[in-house]
């Protein structure tokens, strides 16, 4: 790695921060840690407070309550220009009256870096994002993807401790998005820079992140590595937002040493390590059933645990088939058949049995 771009990573620790706009708490008592050198994603639907959180880290808003630390320094009240964070804005925000070179050099000039140092560092940064030869272009003559690279070079050239990205891929077309995703990840890992990445695209979050923070209406529902978020969602919201989920109402019947017993649709299920929150006998919960953990069988099949139902709808997708199965009590389950064979497809009206991978079934708190 080129020495002019080496970065000393620092963790970002947000402790119980709140930001209000009038009566609305856009960010509501939130605690998030972005580990040093890792990529942390803020994920959630539009309006859940991701941008507001990011802007507090960047210094564009001050939290009404709580503290933000970068490394061991509390940065509340520190203006953006005095912070070691750099943002890549959603609209890129390139300076329209400057060339690529001048855009990238801006942060160095603004902070009084020695003249002789500026040229080589800018060249390095431009090369890092693969824009060699475009240094003298005016920023208005660039494509969307090129503009974004300039925005990255401009942020990275100043060796920030923390890189902040607000939906950086949302203005690109779908193909370029997948490509840039991989590039961003590689860049981040090569530089080892602490990065906070905002997105509403769960696939993007899952594929990029060391840690995913799922936000919901100004609060954090869960934070952890992608596989934990997917396999052990803490709330119905998380399970629903990430991937496709079926929910089945259940009641906790008994606690056992290695799990719990629940009653769902009149069937008793013994689940092992099924939940992250404490449960009590008699409590209501929701079973989270991922389509890939459900298997369609003939109605008279036995073995394992399953529910009897009727096929309501079939969608043949080539590589897979997706079934809607109606269970007693108005419950519809989406079931995936990963290797469908045309002739053997079930048809609407067929009576079937849905078998569960009991060891993958997870319980989240029911609606109370």
């Amino acid at each position, binding site marked *: 790695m080129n020495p002019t771009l080496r970065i000393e990573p620092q963790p970002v620790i947000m402790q119980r921060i709140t930001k209000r706009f009038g009566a609305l708490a856009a960010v509501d008592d939130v605690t998030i840690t972005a580990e040093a050198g890792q990529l942390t994603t803020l994920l959630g639907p539009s309006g859940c407070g991701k941008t507001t959180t990011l802007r507090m880290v960047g210094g564009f808003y001050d939290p009404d*309550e709580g503290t933000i630390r970068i490394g061991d320094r509390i940065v509340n009240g520190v*203006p953006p*220009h005095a912070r070691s964070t750099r943002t890549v*804005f959603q609209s890129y*925000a390139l*300076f*329209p009256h400057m060339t690529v070179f001048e855009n990238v050099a*801006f*942060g160095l000039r603004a902070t009084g870096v020695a003249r002789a140092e500026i040229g080589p560092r800018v060249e390095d940064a431009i090369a890092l994002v693969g824009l060699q030869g475009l240094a003298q272009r005016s920023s208005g003559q660039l494509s969307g993807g090129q503009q974004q690279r300039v925005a990255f070079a401009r942020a990275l050239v100043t060796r920030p401790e923390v890189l902040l990205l607000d939906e950086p891929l949302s203005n690109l077309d779908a193909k370029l998005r997948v490509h840039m995703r991989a590039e961003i990840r590689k860049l981040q890992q090569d530089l080892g820079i602490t990065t906070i990445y905002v997105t509403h695209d769960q696939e993007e979050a899952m594929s990029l992140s060391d840690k995913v923070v799922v936000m919901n209406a100004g609060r954090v529902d869960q934070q952890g590595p992608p596989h934990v978020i997917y396999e052990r969602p803490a709330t119905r919201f998380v399970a629903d937002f990430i991937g496709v989920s079926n929910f089945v109402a259940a009641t906790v019947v008994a606690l056992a040493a290695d799990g719990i017993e629940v009653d769902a649709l009149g069937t008793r299920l013994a689940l092992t390590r099924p939940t992250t929150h404490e449960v009590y006998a008699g409590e209501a919960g929701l079973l989270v059933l991922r389509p890939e953990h459900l298997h369609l069988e003939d109605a008279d099949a036995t073995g394992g645990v399953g529910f009897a139902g009727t096929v309501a709808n079939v969608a043949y997708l080539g590589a897979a088939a997706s079934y809607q199965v109606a269970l007693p009590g108005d419950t519809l389950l989406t079931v995936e058949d990963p290797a469908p064979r045309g002739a053997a497809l079930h048809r609407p009206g067929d009576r079937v049995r849905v078998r569960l991978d009991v060891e993958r079934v997870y319980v989240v708190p029911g609606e109370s």
Partner: protein
Amino acid sequence: MAVPSPRAPRLRTRPRWLREPVVTAAYAAVGLTVALLVLYPTLTILVESVRDGEGGLTLARYQRFFTSTYFLHTLYNTLLVSGIATALSLVLGFAFAYAVTRTDLPLKGFFTSVVLVPMLLPAFLIAFALILLLGRNGVINRFLYEVGAWLNLADPYALQWVVFGSHGVILAQTLTFFPMAFLVFSAALASIDPRLEEAAEDLGGSYWFTLRRVTLPLLAPAAFSSALLVFMFNASAFGAPAVLGGGRLFFPQASMLAPEAIIQILGLYDWGMGTTIAVILVVPSLIIFVFGEYYLKKRSYVTVTGTPTAFTLRAVPPTVKWTLFAVCLLVSAFIIGVVLVVVAGAFTRTWGVNYELTWRHMQTALNASRGSITNSLLLSGGGAAAAAVFGILSAYLFTRRPFPGVRVLDFTAMLPYALPGVVMGLGFAVAFGGRWSWIVLTGTATIIFLNHFIRRMPFGIRSGSSALKQIDPVIEEAAADLGARPVYAFRRVVFPLLRATVLGAFVFGFINMMTDITAVIFLVSPRWRLLSIDLFNAIDAGRLGVAAALSVIMIVSTFVVLLVVWRLSGKGLDFLRR
């Protein structure tokens, strides 16, 4: 479930005004400027108008104004002349705007340029040119006299149409102010989606039906706001009434409000009555201004979208088209005639009598007014530069670093736009003239400079805030994010993006100051004379040749400045349309 714990404590950070000392200092500077140069002079006028000789307060002067036939006639003259001139300006402005935005008339580009010329000329210069054309010795009237004599009429003067009187004032003011209506209408017409009109015709509406039921109603807010604006300028006009009005208005014994205020002060030394008239002049302007700022803006149908709609010109009935063409051609010819006749007058021995070519007037003008010319250029240039920079800085503060109560400051800073020149000039004369023995600036260049500056600052604020709307605030956040302190970010990012706007505000301010008389007439002194006042005095004294020479000097120097700025901005004169 965990019991919700108490909220995290609020971390004490320093208040904003301490964290941003530059912003705080800038606000202090703007606040002080506005208080000293806007509020203080305005209040002194108000107080002066109700102060009696013994240190008490009295409304006697207002009572006198509203009971005396003379003063009431002054008011009626003002209302009648302004009302008619406003109506005519609206019609002409609409005709030009409709012709250039909605028809395929020949010479459209020419019309669009010519219509802007009156905005570059002093109001009284048009009045003066009318004298050269239509005065007793004016070229047109001389010609009409010859025709009358040739026809052996009993009265060879019968065919003449002498411009002195209400009709002359109305003509001069219409020509002076209709470009404002044109600008408002053409902006409004350009932003009405032509598809609306197409839809109306598609639904079976005839041309006239569509015009009456779709186009005109959509233009109503624009018409209303330009009517208010034009009326405001008409009602406080001084030049044309002073040059063409004397003793020949609707109510012939009386003058109009602005010239009357000047007569009271400079002729009769009656400060009390002068300030009273000034206050009376302020009231309608202020009402119109407040109404326009806070009511009309919210109601406008015209929405500015980033992408201009492409026009497909609609078929306009030939009668309409060629009528519009005739009107535009006539008015444009007249405007060009105004400029040509002034140039001709400058090089003609005795206008109307002896058309020999001469340099005499030019020499006299240059000799007698050399100092005035330099003063005007320096003070207008300096004042305009200060007004443009300071105004745009203020616009930046108001829109990007607002604080509670910023609207009040904004409103006060915009006031000089609404306050008639007479009021601002008189206010300065009273406030800084020793009568209030506080800061005495009478007879200095400073008082002229400050007056220029504060009267043109609203241009800077207006154009600055509309230009800032085009600049995404995230650009500045990006600068701060990259480590630029606020002042550095402003200097390197915001200001370069506002360059054309600064130049535009400068040019507008400069032209306005070069040509202003109503305010500075109270502020000039033997040591600090100005070109515009010399010109006005020459017209007043009937020295038409010298006046024409001075006008040419004024037009040429304005033109040179325009040209220089044009080259600097590299953008053409588009900024004039803002």
